[in-house]
């Protein structure tokens, strides 16, 4: 396997990322304002339901970002280009962050609504399993120093973890449905759709901004790792004690 293309970080990436994040802040502010003050409270759950305006967009974006990770993993294995490795690292990190946020928001909602922080609902359990599976991939990246091995292995682990997601969901659903069925009516009134949509784009832009920024960082680090050492630095490294004498 030969990877001869050095990563070329785009110098304008931080600017693009700041732009995306700025747009997302504006969108989230508008969406949350409408969601908190203009949308009607839900009939049964009252104001607690308003967490939906961040919870549902987080869920959508988390799934989307993890799909991006899966695509990057396949793209790296086929094309062997470093930029896919950088994007893989970024998308797994952002995806895990969003999935963790999703669990936290879900718990905040579940405590007043169901009376418990945690329930073995299929979606909740699958999200938690997903979190741990991708945290494992992040840990793998930390433990492997060789950039090529790290990239290949994490791509393999990402593909394997992603293939597990539908199986986990089906098995947990099946497992739980033998005890109880959690009814979750997903009918949303039109007055609630506007803030939901605005926030969905807000979180999407936020995640996109993070992805651009994080993959830029990963590419810069990779460029440093892959660049041949400078001659004088290499000498200084071999003979640190003789550095002053020469």
């Amino acid at each position, binding site marked *: 396997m030969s990877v001869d293309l050095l990563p070329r970080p785009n110098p304008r990436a931080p600017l693009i990322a700041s732009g995306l994040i700025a747009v997302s802040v504006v969108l989230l502010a508008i969406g949350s304002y409408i969601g908190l003050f203009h949308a009607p409270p839900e009939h049964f759950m009252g104001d607690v339901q308003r967490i939906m305006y961040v919870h549902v967009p987080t869920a959508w974006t988390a799934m989307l970002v993890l799909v991006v990770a899966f695509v990057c993993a396949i793209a790296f294995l086929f094309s062997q280009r470093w930029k896919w490795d950088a994007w893989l690292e970024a998308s797994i990190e952002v995806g895990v962050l969003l999935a963790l946020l999703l669990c936290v928001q879900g718990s905040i909602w579940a405590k007043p609504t169901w009376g418990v922080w945690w329930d073995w609902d299929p979606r909740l359990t699958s999200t938690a399993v997903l979190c741990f599976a991708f945290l494992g991939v992040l840990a*793998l990246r930390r433990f492997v120093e060789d950039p090529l091995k790290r990239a*290949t*292995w994490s791509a393999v*682990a990402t593909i*394997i973890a992603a293939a597990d997601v539908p199986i986990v969901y089906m098995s947990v659903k099946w497992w739980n449905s033998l005890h109880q069925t959690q009814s979750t009516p997903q009918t949303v009134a039109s007055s609630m759709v506007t803030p939901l949509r605005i926030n969905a784009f807000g979180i999407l832009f936020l995640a996109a901004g993070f992805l651009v920024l994080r993959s830029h960082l990963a590419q810069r680090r990779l460029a440093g790792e892959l660049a041949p050492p400078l001659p004088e630095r290499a000498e200084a490294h071999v003979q640190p004690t003789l550095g002053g004498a020469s």
Partner: protein
Amino acid sequence: MSQLVAALRKDLLLSWRSRAQAAAVVVFGATALLLLSFAVGPNAAALRQLAGGFLWVALLFSSTLALAESFRAETEQKGMEGLLLLPANPVSLFYGKALANWLQLMLMGMGLLPVLIVLYDPDLGRLWELCGILLLGTAGLSAPGTLYAGMAAQVRAQQVLLPLLLFPLVVPVLLAAVKASSLLLLGDPMGQAGSWALLLLAFNGIYWPLCGLLFGTVIEE
């Protein structure tokens, strides 16, 4: 195919020669079963209820020890490089090792069954079907387990990395195997054990080919 048989023979021979190690892993599993019963307390009815779950948790914990051990010969003396230079096909190497691990895990499960019977007193009316679930469940552990052990063997902190990667992945295996075993041990009025066995079969059907396909990229230098 002949390469696969040779690889399988090599791995079985290696595990046979270090059988004391395998026996120690079974003892570890038995200790885990004993400790798990302390977590519940001396309540015979509750223990009988939980027997299926405890069997699989003990098996899962001991499987990481067995799987991590399975790549020692390949990493210690750079044996994997030698095998690849022969040249051996990575796919046959994977299936040889995965089959050997499967057999070993299967025997471990069989070794834990008597301990389970003594400690938890489950109803063993459907022992053969339980062995079938053991067969399917250990197969589900061994395919991704062998792939991840191959990665973890080459890294520092392999003791942490293997369970970290493997445990979330095999949640469906654990769920299905526990559910099916519990149904077989406690009675299955609705005949659901079969559908859990099907889920195990589906998991194996996905991961045995997928891991074999990906193993080549993992060990390539």
